[in-house]
C-alpha cells in the first residue's frame, strides 16, 4: 500500500515512520482478522468472502461521503461526516455479512467439509465481480487528503518519532474496537453463547442456545468491523478498488491464524505483526518481490505456528 509520508532512507527517522505505517496497515489487517477469527472460531469456516465484505465497506463509505457533498461542498464538518460514513459502512457490511451467512453458508451446515469453502470462494468472487460491474474496475480516491484536511495527514511528533493524526486515529480506533469486542465476547450473554458454540455447537444447542442466532451475530459483528476497516483504508490510503479485498483478506486470515484462531487479542497482535512485517519488507528488503517474500514468511508462519502465538492446540477426539 502506498505511504503518505516522505522519508529519508536508512535511519531512525525512516525506521519509526515505517513502524507507524506498518502499525497502521496492521490495524486494518487486525480489524479484518477479527472477523475471520470469530467466524472460524464459531463455524470452523474460512470465510473467503470476508475480504470482499471489507472492500464493499470501503465503497459504501465512499458513496456516503460523495452523497454528502464531499469533497467540494460537504454538508457538515469532517468529524460527523466520517462518523456517518463509518456507521453506514458498518451497518451495510453487517447486513451483507448476515445475508451471506443466511443464503450461502447456512444451507451447508451439514454438507461435506469442502462445500462451504467452495461456496465462500464463490461468494468472494461474486462480490468482487459485482463491485466491478457496479462501480468499474479502476480504483477511486476518497479525496479526504487532498482537500481541506491535509494537516491531519502531516507528520507530527518528536525528533525522529513522527506520526500523523490519521495514523494515530486508526491505531487507536482498532484498539478501542478490539476492547469493545472482547467485552462483548467475555461479558455479555450472547458473547458467552458464542464461546459455547465455538467449543461444541451441538451441545450448545442442547443447552438452549439458539445456534443460528449466535452465528448470525458473529457474522454481523465481524462484517461490521470489516466495514469499519474499509472506511479506514479509504481515509488512510485514499485509494480503494474492487480488488483490494482479496490480498488484504489473505493476509488478515493469516493474521488470525498467527494470533491463534478464536483469540481476539491474538488476531490483533497477528494483524499488527503482519502489517509491520509487510511494510518493513517493502521498505528494507524488496519492493518488486515484496509479495513473494511476505507470502513466503506467511507460509512458514502457517507451517510452524499453525496453532498461533497465543492459540492452544485443540485435542481431537478419536
Amino acid at each position: 500500500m502506498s505511504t503518505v509520508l516522505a522519508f529519508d532512507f536508512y535511519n531512525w527517522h525512516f525506521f519509526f515512520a515505517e513502524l507507524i505505517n506498518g502499525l497502521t496497515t496492521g490495524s486494518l489487517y487486525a480489524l479484518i482478522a477479527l472477523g475471520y477469527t470469530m467466524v472460524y472460531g464459531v463455524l470452523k469456516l474460512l470465510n473467503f468472502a470476508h475480504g470482499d465484505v471489507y472492500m464493499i465497506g470501503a465503497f459504501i463509505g465512499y458513496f456516503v461521503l460523495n452523497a454528502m457533498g464531499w469533497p467540494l461542498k460537504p454538508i457538515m464538518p469532517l468529524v460527523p461526516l466520517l462518523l456517518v460514513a463509518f456507521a453506514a459502512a458498518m451497518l451495510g457490511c453487517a447486513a451483507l455479512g448476515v445475508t451471506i451467512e443466511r443464503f450461502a453458508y447456512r444451507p451447508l451446515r451439514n454438507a461435506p467439509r469442502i462445500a462451504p469453502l467452495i461456496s465462500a470462494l464463490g461468494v468472494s468472487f461474486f462480490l468482487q465481480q459485482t463491485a466491478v460491474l457496479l462501480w468499474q474496475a479502476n480504483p477511486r480516491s476518497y479525496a479526504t487528503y487532498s482537500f481541506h484536511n491535509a494537516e491531519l495527514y502531516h507528520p507530527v511528533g518528536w525528533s525522529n518519532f513522527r506520526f500523523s493524526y490519521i495514523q494515530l486515529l486508526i491505531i487507536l480506533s482498532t484498539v478501542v474496537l478490539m476492547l469493545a469486542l472482547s467485552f462483548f465476547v467475555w461479558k455479555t450473554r450472547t458473547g458467552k453463547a458464542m464461546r459455547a458454540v465455538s467449543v461444541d455447537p451441538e451441545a450448545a444447542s442442547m443447552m438452549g442456545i439458539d445456534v443460528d442466532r449466535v452465528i448470525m451475530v458473529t457474522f454481523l459483528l465481524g462484517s461490521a468491523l470489516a466495514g469499519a476497516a474499509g472506511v479506514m483504508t479509504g481515509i488512510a490510503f485514499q485509494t480503494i478498488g474492487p480488488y483490494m479485498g482479496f490480498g488484504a483478506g489473505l493476509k488478515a486470515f493469516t493474521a488470525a491464524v498467527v494470533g491463534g484462531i478464536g483469540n481476539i487479542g491474538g488476531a490483533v497482535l497477528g494483524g499488527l505483526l503482519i502489517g509491520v512485517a509487510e511494510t518493513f519488507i517493502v521498505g528494507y528488503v524488496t519492493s518488486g518481490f515484496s509479495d513473494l517474500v511476505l507470502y513466503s514468511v506467511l507460509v512458514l508462519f502457517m507451517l510452524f505456528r499453525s496453532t498461533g502465538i497465543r492459540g492452544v492446540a485443540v485435542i481431537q477426539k478419536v
Partner: protein
Amino acid sequence: MSEDAPTPGEESGSTSPQIGIDEWVKRSGERIAGPGGVFGGAVRVAGRTPRILLLAVFIGFACVLPLLTSNGYVIGVDADTLLYVLLAIGLNVAVGWAGLLDLGYIVYYGFGAYLYAELSSAHYNLHWPTWQSVPVVVAFTVLLGFVLALPSRRLRGDYLAIVTLFFLQMFNNFTTNGYTLDWFGAPTESGLTGGPTGINNVDPFRVFGHALTNSPTDYVWAAAAGITVVAILFTFVNRSRTGRAWRALREDPLAAEAMGIPVKWLMLLAVAVGAGVAGYAGAVNGAYYQGVFPDTFMFPLLITIYAMVILGGAGSLGGVIFGAVTVNVLLEVLRTPAHARWIFYAALLIGLLAKLRPWRVLAAVLGGLVAFGVAANQIAGAISAKAVAGPIAVGPTAYTKHGFFATLVRHWMILPGGTYTNADYKPGNYAFVATIALVLALTLVKGWKRWALLVPTLWLAAFAWETDLVNQAPTVRPLFLGVILIVLMVMRPAGLFGQSRVEVV
C-alpha cells in the same frame, strides 16, 4: 428430489411379487436420488453407456469439429475447451478424489507454460524440440507439485487452501516482476519471465518433423491426445490401490492412516499427479498462443476451473469433462451480446418450463410476466416518453430497431433513453442489486407468494439484463462463475454427475 424414486407399483415388478428386506436393500441403489427430469434421464442413459465409448464420442466430436467448419472462432473455442478439460481432469485428482482443496493449481499450469516458453523459444535461444521439452516440462511440474504439496503434510483443509493460495500469489508476483532477474544469462531487457508482457515468440509444437503452426486446429489434436491418454491412465489409477487410498483419505484421513495408508505421501502424490497434467496443459497453452503472459495464470482462471469441476461433479471423470465443456461454451456464448441475449431468455424460459408445476401456475406466471411488463411499459410511457425511448441495442453490436424480438422487448420493457453509460447511478445497477435481493427472497417464501414474487423478479432481472448486463460481458462472465459455485454448493454439492455423498449418519 424424492419424486424420482420409483413408485411401489414399479418396484414390485411381475418377476418378484414379494420383496424381502434383503431384496429391498439390494435395490437401494435404484432409489438414490439423482437429478430429475430430462436431464436426469440423460444422466441415467450416460450412466449405462460404457465410459470408454462416451470418451471416444467426445474426443471424436472434438477432433472432427475443425474438419467440419472453417470458422476459426469455433475451432479456437474447441481448442480452448479441450485445454480446460485437461485442466479440470488434473484438478479433479486433488479436489475430487483426494478431497484436498488445492487453490494453487494454477501455479502448475503457469509453471508448465513458462518452462516450455523458456525451453522452446527465442527467449534463451534454446528452441528445444517438443519431444524433449514437453517431457521435461511435465517432469519438472510433477516435481514442483511434490515440493509445493509438502506443506500439506502438516496442514489440512482450510489451512492448506490458504497456503496454496499464497503460492498462487507468489507465482503471480514472481512472473510479473521476474523481468528484473537475469538468471541463467537471461536477456537483460526482459529478464527471466519477461515481466508483465510475458514471453513471446514461443515455438509451436513440432511432431515428427511437422510444426503445428496451423493453430488452433493442430492444438485441438494435441489437447485431445493428452485428454485421451490422461483419462485412460487416470481411470486405471482410480480403480487401483492408489485411487482407493485417495478416496479413503478423502473420507477419513485418520482412519485411513490407522489402516496402514500413508496419508501424507498420498496427498503429495495427488497434488503432483494433477500438477503433471496441468504442466502438459501449460506447454500446450504456450505453444498454442505462441507466448505466455502472467495475467493468464491468476485467480479468475482458478475460479473458472473450480466452477467446471464443481458443476460436473468433483470426483467423476466424466462429470468434470462435461463441466469443463459446458462452462467454457457458456462463457463463450456470454461473450457476444447477441448470443448472450438469446441464452438469457432461453434459460429463463426453460427454467420456468422445467420447474413450474402444475401447468396452471406456469400459465399464471408467464401471463403475469407479460402483463406486468406491458403494464410497466405503459405506465412509464405515460409518465414520460423518455422512459421508454431507449435503444434496445447497446454497445458494440448494433441491433435493428424494428426486429421482431426487438419490438417485443420494447413493448414489454422500460428502456430509459441515454442512460447506459458507465455511471455509478445508472438504473441497471439498482436493478441488478434489487434482482439479487428478490432472488434471495424467493428462496425464503413458499407457495403462491413465491409465484407472485417470481413475476417482478424475472422482469427486474430482464431489466437489469437489457439496460446493463448484456453489454458487460467481461464482468458478467466471471460473475456467472461465482454464481455457479454458490448455487451448486447450496443446491447440489455433488455436482451434476457426482455421486451424492453421505457425511455423517
